[in-house]
C-alpha cells in the first residue's frame, strides 16, 4: 500500500512538472523577446547637412545615407543636375565618408572631385550638381522623431537582466533533465550529467560574452541557448552519443558566432574577403559533389576522418555574406551580378546532389536578398520563371524525382511505405502528446528514422507537448521580427540585409521542416534551426544568428562602465 501511494506521489510530481514546462517555455520566449525590445538609443540625427544656397537643414539619421534626386533617397536633393542615385554619405569608425556611386557629373568635396571613399569632416562642403551641402553637427537640428512600436519606451519597466534570463533557462533544462531521469524505460542520472556539462558551456559563453567581450545584451544568445539546450536534452534518452556530439557542436557554434560577430564588426572588411568566401563556398560544394555519399536520397554528406559533415550548412553562412553589402557597394552592378551567379551555382549544385530542400531554402533566401537589394519585382519574376523552367527540365530528365513527393496531400494512404511513413507518425505522436506531452524520453516517435533531426518538431510535440512546440515556432518568428526591427538602427545596409535574410532563411527553413513533416507541404528533409540533431546544422544556425546580433547597433557599443554611472549620478544631484 505504501509502495503504491509513493508511486502516485512520484507520478503526480512528474505530471505537475510536465504541466509546468509549457507555461515556463512561453515565459522564457516572452522574456527573451521583451529583453530584445529594451535599451534604445534616443533617436536623434547623427549629423546635419545644410544646403548652402537656401540654409535648409536636413537631418542625417543613418550610418549610411543615399544622396540623390530620386524619391527613395535618404537625402533628397531636388536639382536636375543631381543624378537619381548620386552618392552615399556613410559613417565608419574613422569618421564620415562620401562615396560617388556612378553619378553623371561627379561628387566634389571642398571643390575637389572625389574618387572612391573620401573622408569628410564637420564644415566640409559636399557639392553634388549645383547644390552644395555643408556637414554640420547633429545637435544643430531639433525635431521630434517618430516612435517605434517595437522598442519599449525609456519609461517602461525594465525587463529581466541577462543573467536572470539565463537562470530561467538553466532551470528549464534542469526540469527536462529531471523528467528524463524518470523516463519510463531507463531510469538513471546520465541526463543530469549532460545537463551539467551543457550548463557549464552556456554559462562560460555568457561570462565570456559579458566580461571578456563586453557585450551589453544577451537575449539573442539566450534564446539560442534555450533552443539548442532543449535539443540536447531531448537527445539524451534517444542516443547518448548524439547528445554529446550535439553539445560539442553547440560549443563550436558559440565560437563561430563570436568569430563572425567580431569579423563583421567592420562591414568593409567583408567586401575585401568576398571573393575568397565565394571561392571557398563553391569549393566546398564541389568537394561535396565529388566525395559526397548518398544518404536518404541526397548526397549532401561528406565524411572527414569519421565525422560526417554537411557542407551545404556552412555555405548558408557564405551565402548571406555574399548577398549583403554596404550601401555604396550595393549600388554597383558588378556586386549584384556576382551574387546572382553565385546563387545559381549554389542552387544548381544542391539540386545536383538531390538535396532539394536545401536548394529550395537557398532559392527562397536568394529571392529575399534580391528583393531587399534591388526592390525590383522584375528581377524576382525573372528568377521565378527561371526556377520554374529549371524544375520543368529536372522533371522531364529525371521524372522519378517527382515520386519522392508523390504522397504529399494523401499520406494517410501511405502509412506503411516511405511516402508517408514519417509524416503520419509525426501526426499520430503529436496528437498522442496532447498539450503537455508524455514526458522527456517517453515518446515513441524516437524509434522512427530521422526523428531527432528532420522530425524533431514532432518529437518535441510528443514528449513536451504541443504548447512547447508552438512556443519554439513563436521564438523563431520573434527572431525574425527582432531582426527586422533592429534594421532601423543598424549601422550599414550590410547588417540590415544580412540580419533580415538570415532570419528569413531560418523562418523559411522552419516552415519547410514543420509543414513538411505534417503534410502541409511536401516532405523535403530539412532541419529545424537549433533543435535538430546534427553538428553542421547547429554550427550554421549559430553562424546565422551572428548576423542578427551584428545588426543590433548595441552589439558594438562600449559597455557602460562604473565611471559612466557615477557621472550620471552626479548629474542627477546637480
Amino acid at each position, binding site marked *: 500500500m505504501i509502495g*503504491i501511494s509513493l*508511486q*502516485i506521489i512520484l*507520478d*503526480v510530481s*512528474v*505530471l505537475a512538472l510536465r504541466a509546468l514546462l509549457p507555461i515556463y517555455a512561453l515565459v522564457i520566449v516572452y522574456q527573451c523577446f521583451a529583453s530584445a525590445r529594451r535599451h534604445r538609443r534616443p533617436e536623434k540625427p547623427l549629423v546635419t547637412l545644410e544646403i548652402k544656397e537656401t540654409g535648409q537643414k536636413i537631418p542625417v*539619421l*543613418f*550610418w549610411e545615407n*543615399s544622396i540623390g534626386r530620386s524619391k*527613395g533617397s*535618404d537625402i533628397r536633393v531636388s536639382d536636375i543636375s543631381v543624378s537619381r542615385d548620386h552618392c552615399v554619405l556613410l559613417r565608419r569608425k574613422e569618421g564620415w565618408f562620401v562615396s560617388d556611386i556612378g553619378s553623371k557629373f561627379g561628387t566634389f568635396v571642398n571643390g575637389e572631385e572625389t574618387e572612391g571613399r573620401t573622408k569628410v569632416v564637420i564644415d566640409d562642403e559636399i557639392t553634388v550638381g549645383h547644390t552644395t551641402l555643408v556637414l554640420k553637427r547633429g545637435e544643430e537640428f531639433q525635431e521630434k522623431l517618430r516612435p517605434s512600436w517595437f522598442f519599449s519606451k525609456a519609461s517602461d519597466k525594465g525587463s529581466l537582466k541577462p543573467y536572470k534570463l539565463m537562470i530561467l533557462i538553466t532551470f528549464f533544462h534542469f526540469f527536462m533533465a529531471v523528467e528524463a531521469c524518470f523516463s519510463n524505460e531507463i531510469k538513471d542520472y546520465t541526463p543530469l550529467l549532460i545537463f551539467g556539462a551543457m550548463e557549464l558551456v552556456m554559462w562560460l559563453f555568457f561570462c565570456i560574452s559579458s566580461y571578456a567581450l563586453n557585450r551589453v545584451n544577451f537575449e539573442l544568445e539566450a534564446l539560442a541557448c534555450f533552443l539548442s539546450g532543449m535539443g540536447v536534452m531531448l537527445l539524451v534518452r534517444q542516443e547518448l552519443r548524439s547528445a554529446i556530439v550535439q553539445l560539442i557542436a553547440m560549443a563550436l557554434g558559440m565560437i563561430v558566432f563570436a568569430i563572425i560577430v567580431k569579423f563583421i564588426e567592420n562591414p568593409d572588411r567583408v567586401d575585401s574577403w568576398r571573393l575568397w568566401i565565394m571561392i571557398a563556398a563553391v569549393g566546398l560544394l564541389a568537394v561535396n559533389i565529388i566525395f559526397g555519399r548518398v544518404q536518404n536520397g541526397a548526397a549532401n554528406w561528406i565524411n572527414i576522418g569519421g565525422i560526417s559533415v554537411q557542407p551545404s550548412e556552412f555555405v548558408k553562412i557564405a551565402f548571406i555574406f555574399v548577398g549583403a553589402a554596404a*550601401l555604396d557597394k550595393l549600388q554597383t552592378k558588378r556586386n549584384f551580378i556576382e551574387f546572382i551567379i553565385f546563387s545559381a551555382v549554389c542552387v544548381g549544385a544542391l539540386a545536383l546532389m538531390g538535396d532539394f530542400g536545401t536548394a529550395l531554402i537557398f532559392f527562397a533566401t536568394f529571392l*529575399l536578398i534580391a*528583393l*531587399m537589394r534591388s*526592390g525590383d519585382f522584375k528581377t524576382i519574376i525573372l528568377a521565378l520563371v527561371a526556377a520554374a523552367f529549371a524544375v520543368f527540365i529536372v522533371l522531364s530528365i529525371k521524372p522519378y524525382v517527382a515520386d519522392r513527393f508523390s504522397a504529399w496531400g494523401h499520406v494517410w494512404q501511405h*502509412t506503411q511505405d516511405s511516402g508517408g511513413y514519417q509524416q*503520419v507518425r509525426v*501526426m*499520430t*505522436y*503529436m*496528437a*498522442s*502528446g*496532447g*498539450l*503537455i*506531452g*508524455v514526458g522527456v524520453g*517517453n515518446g*515513441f516517435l524516437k*524509434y522512427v528514422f530521422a526523428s531527432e533531426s528532420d522530425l524533431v518538431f514532432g518529437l518535441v510535440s*510528443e514528449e513536451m*507537448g*504541443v504548447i512547447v512546440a*508552438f512556443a519554439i*515556432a513563436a521564438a*523563431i*518568428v520573434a527572431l*525574425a521580427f527582432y*531582426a*527586422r526591427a533592429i*534594421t*532601423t538602427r543598424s549601422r550599414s*545596409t550590410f547588417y*540590415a*540585409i544580412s540580419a*533580415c535574410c538570415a532570419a*528569413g532563411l531560418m*523562418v*523559411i527553413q*522552419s*516552415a519547410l521542416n*514543420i*509543414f513538411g513533416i*505534417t503534410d*502541409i507541404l511536401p516532405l523535403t528533409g530539412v532541419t529545424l534551426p537549433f533543435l535538430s540533431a546534427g553538428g553542421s546544422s547547429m554550427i550554421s544556425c549559430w553562424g546565422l544568428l551572428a548576423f542578427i546580433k551584428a545588426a543590433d547597433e548595441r552589439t558594438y557599443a562600449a559597455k557602460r562602465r562604473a565611471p559612466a554611472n557615477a557621472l550620471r549620478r552626479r548629474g542627477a544631484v546637480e
Partner: protein
Amino acid sequence: MKRIMTRSLIVWFVSLAFLAGIIFLGVRLVVHNAEWVQQPYNGHIASSGGLAKAGKIYDRNQVTLAYNENDKRLYHPDQSTRESLLHVVGDNTLNISTAIQSMYRTNLTGYSFILGLGLPESLRGNSDVTLTLDSDACRAAYNALGGRKGACVVYNYKTGEVLCDTSTPSYDPSNPPEITEGNEKDYDGVYLDNVVSSTFTPGSVFKIITSAAAVESIPDIYSQTFTCNGSLDVEGNAITCEYAHGTQTFSEAFANSCNCAFGEIAMQVGSEKMKATAEKLGFNNNSLKMSGIPIAESHYDATGVGENYLAWSGIGQHEDLANPMLMAMICSAVANGGTASSPYIVEDDGKLLDKLGIAINKANNVDMVSADTAARLHELMRGSANSYANRGVSLAGLNFCAKTGTAEVGEGKEPTAWFVGFIEDEAHPYAFAATVVEGGYGIEAATPVVSAAISELVN
C-alpha cells in the same frame, strides 16, 4: 537605407505566412487529433489493435463484455453472447466502424487532447464504458435469428436506452475469421451493424407511414370503405393481395394488411404528401444518431414516377428502404404520443463526460406526428396486434401494438420478414423492430426473434 528598411518588411510577410501555417496546423490538430491517435502503429496504445490498455465494456447489468488481461483484449466467455454483441462492442480491428471499440476508442484508451496518452498508469481514471444493453436479450435474439441475415433492436421508448441490438451475420471476436475470396459470401456485410447501418425494403410495415399520411391528409378516411377483390389494377399493372379481403373500413384494411386498399390510399394522399409525411417520420434523413453512431438514411420518394409506383410505394415496395432502428423509433413515436425518444447505447454516467470533456451525443427527441395522429396509429397497430395474438404471437404475455411486414425483393428470393411495434406496459416500455432477410412471412420469421428478446428482458 530608407529603401532597404521598407523592403525589409518582406521578412514580416514571410513570418506572418509562417505563423498562419502554424495556426493552420493547430486547427488541423484540434479537429483531427482523435483520428490521428487511433492508428494501429501508435506505440502508446499498440498491441491488441491499440486496445491493450483500454478500459472494460459492461452491459446494463455490469456483465463484462470486453476487458484486458496481460495486455490482451478478451471478450465475454460465452460464444453466442460474443457473436451477438460483435457489432456493438467490436473486435480488435477497426473494421466495424460503428462499434464502441471504434467509435469510443479514444475514450477507452483514456486519451484526451489536453493530456494526450501520457498519463501515468497509476493516475489513469476509469476509462470503462457501460452500455445500456442487456447481453442476455441480445444473445436470445441472436439465437432466434438462427444464422439468417438480419437484425433485432429493442429500446425503451420512454428513456431511449437501447436494450437489445444484434446483427447477423456475425463472427467470434476472439477468433476472427480470415475472409478470403472463397468464403466472402458467408461474410457478406459482416462488418455492418444491420440495426444502424443497413436499410431494407420495408414491405407492409411501411403501411404505418402511409396510414399516418392518410390520417393527416384525408379528412373522411374513417368513413370510406375499401373493397378488395384480390387485385387492384393501376395503369395496367396489378397490385395483389393473397386473397380477396372484401369490403373493409380503413382500420380493417390495416389489420388485414390489404395491399389493394393501401395502394389506393397512397394514391389518394398523393406523392408530395406521402413524401412529406415520410420525411417527418425520419426518412431521407442522414442526421439521426444513436450515441453519436450515425443511423443509415432510410429512403422514400415516389414523386414524378407515376400512379403505379406511388401505389407500390404506399405498401413499402418500389424503391422504399427502411432502417430497423428508424422503424423502432417510429413505433416509439406512436407509443409516446407523437414524439420518438432518441436512442442511446452508451450509459451516460457523467464520469466519462467529466473526465474527457467530450459530450456523448444524446440527441434531442424527434417530433414525428401530432398526438392525435399518434393515437390513431396506436389504435390501428393495436388492432393488427390483436389479430397476431389470435394467431399465437406472444411477447412474454404482455399487451403489444405491432405491424408485420413481408417485403418482396425480387424473383427467386424469399421475402424480407419484418416485425415492428411496442409493448403497452408501464414497467416494460419497449419499442422494437426485427428484420430477417429472406425470412419469409413476417409473422412466422420475425416475431420469434422479438419474442425471444422481450422474454429475456421481462424475466
